[in-house]
Structures are given as structure tokens and as C-alpha cells.
């Protein structure tokens, strides 16, 4: 017996014991598994150009899409407001997914509730679920605000959130003046970045509707859906404080997803205060750090006479230059010397390592703004972002990416793939190899299949811990991105030269 009480093996070594190997081999035989050679042959064929063409001819089937659904973005953005509970109207399984998704990435509890609709709710409408649900949420979790979004189920049957919430208030589920902003967030439209936009607009609309703005010189900043929000938002605040800017971050999840272990459970922590959210209507300008997370929200802010501007996930020198330049332009505050020094240090580090980064080729996938910002930084380091893919990227995004490629000689031969999935990416990696893959944890299967080393810089990161606690934005964040890429390059190089007596002539101490 391979298993003994004295030394219990876990699954990794256990199934490598001869007894199990034999059992699995016989099982394969019993199940009429094709011979190994045939499996290999087919597997190899799926990495050919022939297969790639068939793969890209796919019209209906999506395999491993690199995007999530609207309500995830809605839950994420709502978590960034003071004592706010997300209430997703629809079936409860969906909500469990959002919670686990956020929990597994941030390694923090993630609270959200559902109206737990069942079959009778689907037939008769979900009003009762809304009425009971809001009442229970209010009593059980004592929030200051309940942000209502929807799953597909509620959208398909056409529940009217506005009317339902009004009715629930009439039935005293929550006090009449209690804040219950809402947004319709059907998963079959757009992706989590769309849900972020819709929910944020819903919250602002709730507080701003009917107000007249009196510009006070302050700046609203919207970070957008961002897996590195904990580190990034704190870095953003540090930079804004250094510049002496009067600002409101609209949806700041940095404390919500980074609560301390000190004996106290915080269901809610930090977030944008309700008062500040109300006053944000009087800001002179709103700056979005991710264009594709905020089109409707920015239009809405502009309707109050605010100046608006959007960026693409500010990574690297140029990305951060744009961020600081925009803040400066919108607020009239100069960039302080301290930040110029940080800029110089980032440039210095990039120059120190340029020989190792020059001409490296990359595949990058993720949300449209991330892919743009990341590709831009790669170009700055002399790398070539060959395959840039965003499942939730549009034709307009592809055009923006092409413009970026055209701006640098290192962009020649690079291509943006909007609306494609990770199975497309697999074909790209198999037929036109690159040195490095930048994406999220799901990329590990591509890494295994195509031997392309994976760098995790995109939400969600489930299989590595705490990366989100460090910024990737700003010049400081740029350093971290740079080091992450370099570490991977050097680790791979060490791994390639590590075999004693065979390749260790290049296993060098100094790189």
C-alpha cells in the first residue's frame, strides 16, 4: 500500500505511486483511451497554423474567455464606498461566484448579498425577493448604503429596479431616506468593466440627480476595475498628497480589501465617504484612469459641467507622465520635484537593465486599458508586445492599440486582438512564439501548454499571494513591474542553465 499512517502522502506524490499508476493505466484502457501517440499527434496538430486558422474561424463558441460579467464589476465598485453592501438582485449562485472571485484574489473576505430568486420568483417577478431582501440586509448587516445590481435572471424577466426599490421603501424594508442606488447589470452585455461603469454611474446618479454643481476646484479620480487596487490606490493618494491636490477617489477599495488582523472583524472598512460622494458633484473635473471602465460615468460627470479626461491604466514612464500631466492640467498644481526624482529613478533602472529587456517579445492579455498601458510600457523597455488580446476589447480598442504600435519601431508586427479568447491566444503562442506572457492566473494553462513563461499582472491572481498589495501605477509602480518582468527573465535563465555538468557554464552569479 502506498499510503501508510506514519507518512500520509498528499495527492501530488500519492498518485505517482506504482499502484495508482497501474490503476490509472487500466482505467484508460477500460475507457477506450486512444493510444498515447495519437493523443500526442492531435495535441501537436492543435498547435499548428492549420489549426490556428480553424480556431480563428470560430464564430459561436468561446473557449476560456478572459473576462468576467457585469455584476462582478458592480460588486467591486460598490465595495469602494463607505459601509456599502452590494445587493445583487437575482439568483444567489452568481453572487457566490463574485465573492469567491474577489476573496481568492485579495485573500480577504468579500461581502455581498443576493435576493436569492427561485423559480416562483422567475415566474411571478422578483418583487417579494427585493422587499424581503432589502429588509434582511438592512437588519443583518447594518450598512450605510445598499448598492443594487442585477444578475441575468432578473434582467431576462425584466424586473424594474427603480419601481421595486420604491415599493420596498413603501413597505418599510429600509427607511425612506436610506440610500439604495441601483444599476441594471446584465451579464450578457459587456463585461465586468461595463458593470463597473453602470454601478458607479448609478451611485453618482442617486446622489447627484437634480443637483446644481458649484465648482470648487477639487478633482474626482476614478481608478476603474483593478486587481492591484490596494497598492495602486494608496500610491495614487500618496502622489495626489505630494501634489497638494484636493481630490475624491470615487470608489476606493484599498482598505476594504486589505483589513488588518487585529482581532476585529471589519465587514466594512474605508471606502469613499457618502458625504464626499455627494460633494463630488461640485468637483471641477473628473479623471478616469481606465477609459473602458467609465464611458457613461464620465458623460454623466460632464453633464454637470465638469472637465473630464480618461487614461489607460498608467504604467511606466509615459503612462505616469500622462497621469501627472493630466492631474496638473485639471487642477493647475505643478508636479513637485520629489516626483521628478522618482521619474528619474525609474528611467535609471530601465536603462540599467535595458540589455536584458531589449527585443524581448510578449503576449499580453487582460482588460483593454491594462493591455494598452502594459504594452506601452513594454515598448518603452524595447520589448515587442506581439500579441495583445482583450476578450472585452472592441474594434475601437484595436484601433487605439494599432496607433500605439505605430508610434514605436518596436510595435512593428504587433497586433491587437479584440473579442478573442485564451484559446485563440493558445494558437497565437503556439504558432508565433514569444518570450513572455503577461496575464492573470488563467495564463498558467497557456504556460504549461506552450512553455511561455507567465508574468501575473492582471486580475485575477489566485495562485500567487499579495501581489495586489504593491502598486504597479506611478513611477514607483513602474519599478515593481520592471522588477517583476526582470525576475521572470532571470529566473528562467537560471532555470535554463541549472543542470549540473551540462549547462552550468552559464549559471552565473552576476547577471
Amino acid at each position, binding site marked *: 500500500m502506498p499510503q501508510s499512517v506514519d507518512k500520509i502522502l498528499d495527492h501530488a506524490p500519492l498518485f505517482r505511486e506504482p499502484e495508482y499508476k497501474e490503476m490509472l493505466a487500466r482505467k484508460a484502457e477500460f475507457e477506450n483511451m486512444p493510444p498515447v501517440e495519437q493523443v500526442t499527434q492531435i495535441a501537436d496538430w492543435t498547435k499548428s497554423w492549420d489549426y490556428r486558422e480553424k480556431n480563428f474561424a470560430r464564430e459561436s463558441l468561446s473557449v476560456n474567455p478572459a473576462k468576467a460579467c457585469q455584476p462582478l464589476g458592480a460588486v467591486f465598485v460598490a465595495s469602494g464606498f463607505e459601509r456599502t453592501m452590494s445587493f445583487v438582485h437575482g439568483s444567489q449562485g452568481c453572487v457566490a461566484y463574485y465573492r469567491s472571485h474577489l476573496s481568492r484574489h485579495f485573500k480577504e473576505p468579500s461581502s455581498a448579498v443576493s435576493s436569492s430568486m427561485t423559480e416562483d420568483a422567475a415566474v411571478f417577478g422578483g418583487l417579494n425577493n427585493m422587499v424581503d431582501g432589502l429588509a434582511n440586509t438592512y437588519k443583518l448587516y447594518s450598512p450605510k448604503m445598499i448598492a443594487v445590481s442585477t444578475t441575468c435572471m432578473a434582467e431576462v424577466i425584466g424586473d424594474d429596479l427603480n419601481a421595486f426599490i420604491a415599493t420596498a421603501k413603501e413597505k418599510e424594508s429600509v427607511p425612506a431616506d436610506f440610500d439604495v442606488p441601483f444599476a441594471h447589470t446584465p451579464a450578457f452585455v459587456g463585461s465586468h468593466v461595463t458593470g463597473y461603469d453602470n454601478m458607479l454611474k448609478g451611485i453618482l446618479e442617486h446622489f447627484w440627480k437634480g443637483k446644481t454643481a458649484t465648482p470648487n476646484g477639487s478633482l474626482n479620480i476614478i481608478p476603474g476595475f483593478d486587481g492591484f487596487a490596494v497598492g495602486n490606490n494608496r500610491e495614487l493618494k500618496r502622489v495626489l498628497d505630494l501634489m497638494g491636490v484636493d481630490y475624491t477617489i470615487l470608489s476606493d477599495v484599498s482598505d476594504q480589501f486589505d483589513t488588518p488582523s487585529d482581532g476585529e472583524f471589519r465587514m466594512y472598512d474605508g471606502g469613499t465617504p457618502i458625504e464626499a460622494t455627494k460633494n463630488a458633484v461640485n468637483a471641477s473635473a473628473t479623471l478616469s484612469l481606465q477609459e473602458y471602465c467609465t464611458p457613461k460615468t464620465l458623460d454623466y460627470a460632464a453633464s454637470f459641467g465638469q472637465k473630464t479626461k480618461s487614461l489607460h491604466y498608467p504604467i511606466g*514612464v*509615459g503612462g505616469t*507622465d*500622462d497621469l*501627472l*500631466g493630466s492631474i*496638473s492640467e485639471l487642477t493647475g498644481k*505643478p*508636479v513637485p520635484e520629489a516626483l*521628478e526624482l522618482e*521619474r528619474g529613478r525609474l*528611467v*535609471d533602472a*530601465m*536603462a*540599467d537593465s*535595458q*540589455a536584458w529587456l*531589449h*527585443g524581448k517579445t510578449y503576449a499580453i492579455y487582460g482588460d483593454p486599458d491594462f493591455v494598452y498601458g502594459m504594452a506601452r510600457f513594454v*515598448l*518603452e*523597455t*524595447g520589448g515587442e508586445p506581439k500579441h495583445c488580446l482583450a476578450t472585452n476589447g472592441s474594434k475601437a480598442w484595436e484601433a487605439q492599440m494599432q496607433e500605439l504600435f505605430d508610434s*514605436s*519601431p*518596436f510595435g512593428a508586427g504587433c497586433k491587437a486582438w479584440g473579442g478573442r479568447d485564451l484559446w485563440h491566444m493558445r494558437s497565437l503562442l503556439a504558432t508565433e512564439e514569444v518570450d513572455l506572457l503577461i496575464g492573470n492566473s488563467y495564463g498558467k494553462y497557456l504556460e504549461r501548454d506552450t512553455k511561455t513563461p507567465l508574468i501575473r499582472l492582471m486580475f485575477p491572481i489566485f495562485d500567487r499571494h499579495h501581489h495586489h498589495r504593491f502598486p504597479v501605477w506611478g513611477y514607483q509602480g513602474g519599478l515593481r513591474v520592471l522588477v517583476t518582468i526582470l525576475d521572470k527573465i532571470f529566473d528562467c535563465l537560471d532555470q535554463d542553465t541549472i543542470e*549540473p*555538468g551540462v549547462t*552550468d*557554464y*552559464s549559471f*552565473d*552569479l*552576476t*547577471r
Partner: protein
Amino acid sequence: MAESLNAKITALFDEPGCNTNVAKGEKARKKGCSKPLQPGAAAGGCAFDGAKIALQPITDVVHLVHGPLACEGNGWDNRHAASSGPTLYRIGATTDITETDIIMGNGEKRLYRAMREVVERYAPPAIFVYSTCVTALIGDDINAVCRHATEKFGIPCIPVNAPGFVGSKNLGNKLAGEALLDHVIGTMEPEVTTPTDINILGDYNLSGELWQVKPLLEQLGIRLNACITGDARYREVATAHRARVNMMVCSTALINVARKMEERWGIPYFEGSFYGISDTSEALRTLARLLVAQGADAGLIVRAENLIEAEEKRAWSRLDAYRSRLAGKRVLLYTGGVKSWSIVSALQEMGMVIVSTSVRKSTDNDKQKIKDLMGGDAHMVNSIPPREMYAQLRRGDADILLSGGRTQFVALKARTPWLDINQERHHAFAGYDGMVTLVRQLDASLSNPVWKDVRRLAPWEQEDGETGFDDEGVPALVPIG
């Protein structure tokens, strides 16, 4: 300093193989050739370091440093001297002597015990024992310990007497050479010899450069008996005295070895280089000629010419693609030794413009070659003070700096691209293939977009016309030719 060591150093300063040395009066000769160290000024490595780097590439032996931890610790495995087999030379072996050892005079005992452990653990074909400042100061007699250990253990234990305080890194190279002459070369007989056996002196197989040259030699049927010391085995070095020709590639490092091998065993030597296309060809030609003069088959000369023709053609055709991208770019070469002239001709062939080359550690021969290549010595500098180099680069006198790692940062701060051509480099630049690699790296360095960021002001900054650097009295770097 021990009397014997003193005598050795004095003898080293009298080097008939060195023109400069011969030209000096007797008094001046006693002072030695390296410039006196200047307290308070930034300095290079010590004699110990020089000895260690010259011998460390012998791969199958243990290099045991007798001294406090850091002499070995700071330099442990810090050069890419590659091995095709044994890795024993890369372990950091030291006696790690402590305060008590120094006070109680336990150094010699500790050394002996360390050597015994080395033999028990690794059973190497030889142990090289290095003295350091501290153990030399307290008077540890490593010669005696090594003599005793050789008898006891039955393997050669070679004392390398080059404590740091005796002088410069270059002197250390030579003392290492003396150790080889005194204790290693000629102590074993080779199993086979051929009429085309050669040694290469002063190549350390950095980044595997020797391996770019070896195939060329093999194609000509020239057998590399020993490379001293790149990728060497102890036995190869010990039998080096049976080679027919010595080729010296780093001229100032081991000239004493070349000359004394000629004296003792009648092996002619010449100085050549495998950096650059024409130099590689010239080296192959000379090797063939000298080997034939020593009795090798006369057909070797024709075979060499054929190989040179084919390889040069192949190299130039591969370089063609870069010519248009590199032509007109101005290079500041800041290195030393052979590299100061050996790369010049190849870069000039690419249409690049050399604005200056430095001749630190270069011999008179090296210098003459630079004069021939560049038409005059106006642009030959011994060293450029960092402040001046900064100003020159910042001013835009050159498009790229080729230098060792230490000058890298001057270039980066002066917003100028830089390429490493000294020991910490990661690419092999020797031979025909190496030149193609060098040019490819040069092109990559020059075209890296980071330089745009380095030179560009932040978008919100105004160019205020202030240069921010002081270049008063700093001579301009002028294109040559």
C-alpha cells in the same frame, strides 16, 4: 614582506620582453611599471585579485584563499570564466581566519587543516593556495605549508604569493604567472604531442569566448594544448611546455610567462587578438606561419588562408544588414589592453566613427597599433576622469560608450547608450561570430527606446537652456580619420 617575494617583484620589474621596461634606466626600472597607487583616489583591484582572476579559470582544482572571509567572499564567482566540464573552481574556498588565529598565530595550522579537508572532500588534482594581506602580514609561510602538504597528500599544492598590498591587479596577474612557472608548467609530460600544439596565454574564456575560437583552430587541425587559463585543466597547464607556439592575447598580463617559456623551452610567442575580423584572421595566419616554421606541415598556411577567406566572407555578409543602421555613429572606446585597438578596425569597417580610445593597461605595441589604425595619437588617452567623460557624453560628443561595467553609470547619467565589453559582459565577442554578436548588441543598445526616455524631459518640464553640467576646459572628442 618576505625577502623572497621582494626579490620576485624586483625581478618582475625587469622584464626584457617589455619595450617600455627595457627603455628605462636602472633606477626607474626598480620602481616598476604600474603607476604608484594614489591614496584617496578611486582604485582598481589589488594584486591578490589579479592573481586570483588569472588562475581561477583552471577549472578542476580547488582555489583556496588563506585569509579572512571577505577576500574570497567579495570576489566569489564574480567573473563569467566558463567551464566546459568541472565546476570545482567555482566553490568559494577560504580558511576564513579570525581574530584568534591572528593573535595566536594559528594561521598556518588552520591552512594545513583546510587543505586536508579539501583533499578529503574533493580530491582535486591540485590545490592553489593564495596568500592575502592579513596572512602575509602575520608572516604565515604558505610556501612551507604547501611544500609540506604536497608531500603529505601526494598532490601538487601551489602557493600563490600575491597579497593585496604588494601592488596592482596587473602585478598580481604576473605573480600568478610566476606561480605557474615555478610550480606547474613543465611538471608533467603530455601523453601525446602533435606538431601543431599551441597554447593561448591570457584568455580566461569569459562568457565562453574561447569556444568561439576553438572550432576555427580545430578546422585547421591546430590542437589547443592549454589555454592559460581559460577553461583549463590542471594537467593541460602542467604539460604546456610541450606546445610549439604560444599565442598571447592579453599582452600585459602574462608576458613574463610567454618570455620565460621561450627561454626555458624555446617556444616562440606572438601577440594576437581574436577581437575583430581582421585581427582574428591575422592571428590565424601568424599561428599557421609560426607552426610551419616549427616543423608543422606547410599545407597549414594554405588551409588557413582558405578558412580565413570563407569565414570573413560569411561574417561580412552577416554584418551587412547593420551597416546602414550603424554608419556614422560615433563611438567612445573606453577599455584597455588589446581591446583598445582590436575592435577599432571592425567598427570602422561598419562605417562607425571612433572618437577616442583609452590605453590603460595597453602596451607600447598596443599603442603603436592604435596610431597606425587611427592615424596619430591625438585621440589616445590614458584615462578620462569621470567628470570629463560625463561632460563629453552629456555634450553629445559620442553616440555610444563601449566600456567595462564601472563606467556604465557615467554613461547612463550622461544619457548615453552603453555597451559592456569587459569581463562582466554576457555575450562572447571573440572570433568571427563574436564580431557579429558585438555589432548586433551595439545596434540593439543604440536603438533601445529607453534612451529616448533618458534624454526626454518630463512633459511638464521646460527646457530652460541651462546645461546642468560643467564642461569648461573639457577637451572635445573629435572624430578620427
